[in-house]
């Protein structure tokens, strides 16, 4: 397994911080959209786009690329930010999020923005499509892998478990499902709305290999994805324990920030807090 050296870790931490700043700016500019999930998943996106995925931002249809399906499409601001930073499109386009004629729709659309892989947002339907991709890849003996990012809330949808059952039966070891385990959904705490625990045991009972990680620790996230590549004969579920709203003091762990418009000054405060973290990271790493 490749060892992630410290320089790479700090590079990814700074990228994640950058993604968070983009998310705040985009949602503030759009005057609507989601903040909690995107901030919580920024570290996972930094690791995926800048360490794990085989992809070519200049050739998004490259046939041998890994496929990244974002099932919980509502956290797309962080995906768009990661794509822009990776070079799929100009960073200034991020400010068109949710606006008329933008390629950056409120929920991602494949036909509008190359590289999004599929149209998503209706909860519970991403893993089914990811399973279809992984199954087809295996039929054709392709090496590319399929990654599917899901929210914990969407695990309440029956369709998701149809896909879990199918992938377990078919031992799709070229498939990784990441669960953003942040414990929030629109109406509150996931364990109050509809308890999911024991989640690890549920996946294991469906014949999946489960890896848990701290989804806000770059080293831990990278280790989880690297370990996933060594698993055979089972699909892999990475339960990423994350803090929704990560990096912004008033948002962290507050379910109301799943999505709500900023009040005056809030976006500026969020950016300020993220810049403090950025400076601290740079100082620590003497950049």
């Amino acid at each position, binding site marked *: 397994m490749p060892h992630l050296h410290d320089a790479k870790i700090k590079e990814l931490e700074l990228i994640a911080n950058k993604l968070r700043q983009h998310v705040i700016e985009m949602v503030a500019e759009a005057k609507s959209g989601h903040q909690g999930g995107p901030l919580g998943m920024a570290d996972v996106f930094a690791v995926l786009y800048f360490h794990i995925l085989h992809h070519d931002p200049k050739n998004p249809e490259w046939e041998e690329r890994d*496929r990244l*399906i974002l099932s919980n499409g509502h956290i797309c601001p962080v995906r768009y930010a990661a794509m822009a930073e990776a070079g799929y499109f100009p960073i200034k386009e991020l400010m068109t999020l949710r606006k008329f004629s933008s390629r950056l729709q409120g929920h991602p*659309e*494949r*036909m509008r923005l190359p590289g999004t*892989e*599929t*149209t998503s*947002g*209706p909860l519970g*339907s991403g893993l*089914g*499509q*990811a*399973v*279809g*991709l*992984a*199954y*087809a*890849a295996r*039929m*054709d003996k392709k090496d590319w892998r399929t990654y599917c990012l899901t929210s914990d809330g969407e695990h309440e949808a*029956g*369709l998701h478990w*149809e*896909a879990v*059952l*199918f992938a377990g039966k078919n031992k799709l070891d070229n498939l990784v499902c990441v669960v953003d385990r942040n414990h929030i959904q629109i109406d509150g705490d996931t364990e109050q709305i509809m308890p999911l625990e024991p989640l690890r045991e549920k996946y294991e009972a469906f014949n999946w290999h489960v890896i848990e990680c701290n989804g806000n620790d770059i080293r831990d996230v990278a280790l989880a994805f690297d370990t996933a590549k060594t698993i055979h004969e089972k699909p892999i579920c990475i339960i990423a324990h994350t803090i929704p709203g990560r990096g912004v003091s008033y948002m962290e762990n507050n379910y109301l920030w799943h999505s709500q418009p900023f009040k005056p000054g809030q976006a500026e405060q969020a950016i300020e807090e993220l810049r403090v973290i950025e400076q601290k990271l740079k100082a620590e790493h003497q950049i």
Partner: protein
Amino acid sequence: MSALAHHLIEDLFDPNLPQKPTRDGYGLGIVDAAKLDPRVVVLCADLTESTRNLDFKNQFPDRFVQMGVHEQLLAALGAGMALAGKIPFITSYAMFCPGRAWEQVRTNICLNNVNVKIIGSHAGVSVGPDGATHQAIEDIAITRVIPNMTVIAPCDMIEARKATIAISKMIGPCYVRFAREKSPVFTTKKTPFEIGKAEIFREGKDVAIIACGPLLYNALKAAEELMKDGMDVMVINSHTIKPLDEKTILQAAKKCGAIVTVEEHQIAGGLGGAIAEYLAKTYPTPIEFIGVQNRFGESGSPQELIEHFGMGVESIKKAVKKVLRRK
């Protein structure tokens, strides 16, 4: 000279005409399509035999995917395989796919605009004894309303086979409805079939019957019997409900000035609705609608149910006479 199209079977009204269900045509067509294109795969939701996938499964076991009773996954997973370059035929009873899987059909398949073929067997009340739960009579409405979708209802086993091959060659989402019950096989190898192109099966000038699916045979019978009463009735096979062959329909409306639509489906939202929507804005024409009238089906023999729900030959004849009076 006969008003009937020359390419139809001879002795069209022979009571001993061979009878086969349209789903059999799918079963033959899918094997043909698979031989023509290695990208064709079949996804099956625990209904291998009754959706007529058995021959495909035996001949192409590596391209057959058993889904279990997972109709929503059937549509979502089909979309995923299409994204990877396959041509998935997702197969179930029409009630369950597109019925149960509608949102996945709409978003994962049609908004995504991926090359998935939806095969809905057991459409219509002619499913018979299974009753209303299994009789899809809303499937045309819920598919034709979705952008990017093509919707086809073949009239007999031979046309069903042609339609299956044709959709494997076109790029984009399609829905094709098939029937469980056997019905007369009255087209031939020579009968033209082109997606989006309606065919005039019988020339006439007084009223045009525009039909899809196996009820087309009832329409032809009605037209033949009405000829004895001095009425000259055109019969059109509008197998493709979307995109509608507007040119042929407009010509028929102009020539005949009155239309009867025939389909084994709710009147709301079906072929008749599509024709009415089109003619209302281009050439308003009196129309009578043969189909199920805002009711659910029930158990019974296929023939009993067709008669009970007003889709038999006599009902069609009555509708023709009624629309003639409105001209």
